[in-house]
């Protein structure tokens, strides 16, 4: 067949796409089990870090055991909520998410039971610029959130402030990331939105009893 004919060109392209598409589908199918296991392990690790749970080892089972032992999970409007009922460590963890600079950022924010103090924040998924926005996962950034006081009296977008603030010593502010202003601003924006959602869901006094004794 003439290699210049449109029929040959189209058929060749279709065949190439079919062969390589099938190859990718096979690799994807063959690794599905591993990918699912990795996703569970990643979530458990993030939860252990966020709630500062004691983990006996580094295996997937150890993380699963720590989560099962210390946390009770429930779902609110399609979002997971975690409750830690260990005496002296009572806290609530909320999955949150919003649009970052490039794509959605997902994470877990752990609050005191009265929703006044941030205990920790950890990220489940983000696709920000490596070396810039992606640094939101680094401990120097997330550690800033520990002990932060949520100022519920502030206007809606300023309950927590990421970046500059007119108040020289605010208890509700963390430093933004140099070179990643858009990621920092986006995080501040959707974190405040999510805090409002969380408060509206938990406006009633919280049940001090564990869900599953």
């Amino acid at each position, binding site marked *: 067949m003439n*290699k210049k004919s449109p029929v040959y060109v189209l058929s060749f392209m279709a065949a190439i796409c079919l062969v390589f598409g099938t190859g990718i589908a096979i690799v994807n199918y063959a690794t599905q089990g591993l990918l699912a296991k990795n996703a569970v392990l990643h979530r458990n690790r993030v939860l252990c870090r966020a709630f500062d749970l004691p983990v006996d080892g580094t295996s997937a089972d150890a993380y699963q055991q720590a989560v099962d032992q210390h946390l009770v999970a429930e779902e609110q409007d399609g979002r997971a909520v975690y409750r830690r009922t260990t005496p002296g460590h009572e806290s609530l963890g909320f999955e949150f998410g919003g649009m970052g600079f490039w794509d959605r950022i997902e994470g877990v924010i752990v609050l005191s039971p009265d929703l006044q103090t941030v205990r920790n924040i950890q990220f489940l998924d983000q696709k920000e610029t490596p070396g810039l926005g992606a640094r939101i996962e680094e401990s120097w950034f997330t550690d800033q959130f520990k002990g932060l006081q949520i100022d519920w009296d502030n206007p809606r977008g300023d309950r927590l402030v990421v970046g500059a603030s007119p108040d020289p010593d605010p208890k509700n502010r963390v430093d933004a990331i140099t070179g990643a202003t858009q990621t920092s601003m986006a995080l501040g924006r959707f974190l405040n939105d999510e805090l409002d959602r969380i408060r509206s869901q938990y406006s009633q006094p919280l049940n001090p009893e564990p869900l599953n004794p």
Partner: protein
Amino acid sequence: MASSYTKILKDGLLGENPIYRQVLGICSALAVTNLLANTLFMCFGVIFATALTNFTVSLLRNHIPKRIRMIVQVVIIASYVMMIDILIKAVAPDIHRFIGPYVGLIITNCIIMGRAEAFASQNKPLPSLVDGLACGLGYSAVLISIAVIREIMGFGTLLGFALPARDLWWTQWTIMVMPPGAFFMLAIMTWFARAKLVKQEAK
């Protein structure tokens, strides 16, 4: 025949090294070299993609319509890179979280397209496979050298293992794990390698 393969390997590793001779693939060379483990996975990805792309393009070279050869090459490269991406995500998820964005960028790595167009589309499959391997190995040799130096100087570790009594004799150079560290190292290595090559060629 054997000597021609040796020449292809030598060219890829030294004489025509993609990084310091052809100045290709610099983006990832700068981005993923602050930890050796990340670098090794990136190198595996590039070697795999370059070798198999070269082999496939060479195998199909007499059947690919000339007008759409670039599109076909991109489809082949992208497919192999996606397979690598899925494999790294499955086997080493922690490393994938760090180098994931760069694995995707292998698709646009100039080395792969450059070798497919310059070598594989004009040569037989086996020499093309060796050329792809050689270029991938040449790229890897430079990246690994930079990564070893940056990790030792920046973190005081190698492959995550701390150097003996590190705290007693070593102060970590934070700049080495930051982007400027990569620029300095790459420039120094390119300078050194080219100076050597110029001397050799003069002889």
